[in-house]
């Protein structure tokens, strides 16, 4: 059972982790909608320091409105950005008002 399913609203956390982190700054704190569950993968934060024995983590594709990501005028409201986010970087949108 995964924590999220397609359609769920989520917020990307800002975990302040050092090292090889695959969640870019521009997407942290942003809220979006899960579009797809991708399966489990070894955490790149572990792999980067030679920890290859797991645990594997759930990975999701999450869509964000481009108008929410950037302050520019004139971004068409229907444009989106889809990015892959590991489970531990996500919180349910409704629970995460105080989240990092």
């Amino acid at each position, binding site marked *: 059972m995964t924590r999220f399913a397609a359609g769920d609203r989520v917020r990307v956390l800002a975990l302040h982790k050092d090292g090889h982190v695959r969640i*870019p700054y521009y997407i942290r704190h942003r809220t979006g909608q899960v579009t*797809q569950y*991708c399966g489990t993968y070894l955490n790149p934060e572990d792999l980067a320091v030679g920890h290859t024995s797991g645990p594997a983590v759930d990975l999701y594709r999450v869509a964000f409105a*481009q108008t929410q990501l950037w302050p520019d005028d004139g971004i*068409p409201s229907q*444009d*989106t950005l889809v*990015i*892959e986010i*590991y489970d531990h970087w996500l919180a349910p949108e409704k629970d995460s008002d105080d989240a990092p």
Partner: protein
Amino acid sequence: MMPHDHDHGEHEALIIEDEAGNIEAKIVVDALQQVLAQKGLLTAHEVTAAIAKLESPGLHLGAQIIAKAWTDLDYKARLMSDGRAAVQELDIPVTEARIIVVENTPRVHNLITCTLCSCYPRSILGQPPSWYISKAYRARSVREPRAVLKEFGLDLSLDMKLVVHDSNADMRYLVLPEPPSDLANHTRLELEAMISRDHLIGVARDVT
């Protein structure tokens, strides 16, 4: 010299050469290869075979996948639901964990990028173009994708939905372009010749 008020690490160091013109990374790799060869752990033939393997995939494989999907709707359905398995059906050895195929329609255009490095479906398309790796493309493809597309000659209408896919983690992406309007007039080989690498990344749209 111009004054600098920032750290030099911020500059994009694509190539670092010494005074004799040697590239720093090349010097390190050459030294490593020499040590491994002396210890009998690696031969020159193994190195050239690995290079050949890296360079053997390319656009021709991507074009086969797209032309097959245009002309075989059952195949297209399989490609959309499990890209990796469908690509492997064509005897293309995929090494990426998963291939996600995103379909252009009259109302939707897809663009692929990797903001963190240069993730690309290399086992299918080979090595990415140099602009795909540039910091300018990686930053601007998410920040102002429509302006980037315009510079590639693609002026998307404002009522088209643009979806940018940042391949930041384990998925790798291929764009399935719309087929040409005269699809039925072409053989599959002709169709393959009409497809460019730019179509599969999404910086080009119309296949004509």
